[in-house]
């Protein structure tokens, strides 16, 4: 079929416009990071990055433990992802495959966790964490984050498991596959796109989390980057270029993680489009 050149052109143009909209904040972040602070508080900000200011930016970032913060963020995000996916897949499987009393109630309670605002449970959670000795502890923060991302992961994975014919599982039972093996050899490979989607959601929930981290972590060395970034804001001065520079560094691992799993997600979106 011959392609309409006008249609191709307008489609390309639309993609460029949308990409510009999406990419501009990142560009502006980079541009701001490489500007001089004094320019940023006047009207004289140069709209393009000034690479000459890079050494100054690096020396400013060197004054804060940004690598340490990044590692903390990575630990929180990875912990949240691993626990959410592990528990979420088992929970999703139970909700999808087993008929038991209270199944509906569990589903409802999981949904309720998404309705309650985080801010509402900060104080009770603070009291619980004092009792359990989890205050000022990164694993405590992972636990709090898992509480919010686990239901989402479980629902996503339950939906994906619902779509797998039960006969495939029964076939594995006949083939002597143990129950746990059914999950790891049969179910997980089939729901890989949904696992990737749940991983992205859990990872970014942990990566971007601020409220719990700011409340439960006191030591500067334990802060994640989100809290570290907020600490730049001073009473009299906010070094905007350093904030933007740190934010830029903060976003790089997240983008890398997304690029890593996005192929699986796209594969999941298109699978089933063609009749097998």
């Amino acid at each position, binding site marked *: 079929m011959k392609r309409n050149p006008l249609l191709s052109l307008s489609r390309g143009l639309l993609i460029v416009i949308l990409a510009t909209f999406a990419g501009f904040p990142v560009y502006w972040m980079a541009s701001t990071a490489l500007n001089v602070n004094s320019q940023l508080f006047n009207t004289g900000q140069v709209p393009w990055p000034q690479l000459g200011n890079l050494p100054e930016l690096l020396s400013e970032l060197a004054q804060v433990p940004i690598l340490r913060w990044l590692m903390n963020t990575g630990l929180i995000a990875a912990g949240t992802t691993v626990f959410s996916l592990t528990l979420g897949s088992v929970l999703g499987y139970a909700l999808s495959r087993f008929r038991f009393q209270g199944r509906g109630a569990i589903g409802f309670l999981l949904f309720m966790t998404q309705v309650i605002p985080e801010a509402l449970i900060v104080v009770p959670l603070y009291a619980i964490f004092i009792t359990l000795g989890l205050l000022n502890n990164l694993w405590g923060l992972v636990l709090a984050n898992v509480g919010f991302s686990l239901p989402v992961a479980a629902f996503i994975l339950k939906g994906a498991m619902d779509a797998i014919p039960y*006969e*495939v599982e029964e*076939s594995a*039972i006949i*083939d*002597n*596959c*143990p129950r746990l093996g059914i999950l*790891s050899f049969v179910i997980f490979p089939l729901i890989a796109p949904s696992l990737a989607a749940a991983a992205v959601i859990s990872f970014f929930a942990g990566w971007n989390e601020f409220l719990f981290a700011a409340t439960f972590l006191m030591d500067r060395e334990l802060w994640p980057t989100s809290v570290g970034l907020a600490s730049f804001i001073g009473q009299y001065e906010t070094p905007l270029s350093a904030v933007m520079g740190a934010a830029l560094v903060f976003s790089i691992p997240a983008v890398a993680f997304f690029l890593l799993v996005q192929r699986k997600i796209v594969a999941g979106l298109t699978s089933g489009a063609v009749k097998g």
Partner: protein
Amino acid sequence: MPKIDFKGITKSFGPTTVIRRFNASVEDGEFLVLLGPSGCGKSTLLRMIAGLTDISGGELLFDGALANDWTPKQRGVAFVFQSYALYPHMTVRANIAFPLVMDRFRKWHHIPFVNMVQRWKVMRQPEVADAVERIAEQLELTPLLDRRPASLSGGQRQRVALGRSLVRDPSLYLLDEPLSNLDAKLRTQMRSEITTLHQKVKRTFVYVTHDQVEAMTMATRIVVMNQGYIQQIGTPDEIYDTPANTFVARFVGAPPMNLLPVKVAGQTLHAEGDSHWQHDGGAPKGATSAIFGIRPEKLRLTAPGAGRLPARVAVIERLGAETVLGCRLGAEAADVSGISTEDLVFVRTPGHPGFAHGEACGLDYDAGDVVWFDKSSGQNVAATPVVSTPEPAFEG
């Protein structure tokens, strides 16, 4: 190879009972077909043999040992599903090898990544690789071994499903309507392939179908079921020639057996309407009314006035080698314009009989070919049924 005995097997889902007091046995090496309409409980029974569905009551015996609570692994059966149930993410080779890989599975293989390496290693073991190659060759799947199920045709997928069950060489094969998703031509081909396979492997096959042609062509013995009850157990010939009741008579055979409720007055039989004819072969003793049954191929088409039953041709189905004619009884009064085929008497005759739609004709038969059924119970009154149900379902 196990002999399987069912002793009063019952299955209920909540208040609904789908199988009631099922008593039968599956002999070593036989090809037993469970035949019945949708919802009659035949697939549930098969799943109970496999251990995929719990048994509500009664005893399932494998070689005399109570197997009600045995796991599918303990029963050592192979199961071929209607939808093939292949693992879509695995190649044909991995699908066929999977039961063998699982036989060599150890608990520590659950460790992530270790299991991937172990499965890969087991698949490369000579005895596993050779078994897969041998099965693939037997089922003509060798060129497809490295393809995934999504790129295979329905028949090829069915062969992979068979291969997966064959590879472990189980003593009992359970097949749940394995051909129902295939087109007519492929179904015929696969039918003979499965029959050949049964003769080759010399194992016990239990096959579930609602297709009476499959049952008649493949089975060594058929269990006809309806509404959770056994209607009849017998060889295909017994089922066809001496149906235990009107349900079996109507369910087995295409077109089904002609069943005419008649009033018996000496040598004269009166059907509904004004139709009556002379019958010299006797009727059920002492009965004034009964159901007169005759297979379509046992009826002979004659010139008008020549046969015992005057009729008029209402439907003609040309099948090439033979023709099926639907006739309405009664010569003059017969209305052949209606579209209902409920009250038609079907005649199967070889070749092209030369009758046109609406034309008058005669029907004749040999009295010995008539099968009599009791009018109220629907049971065959001449033949002693091999097994009859405690609560027979009469569908006249």
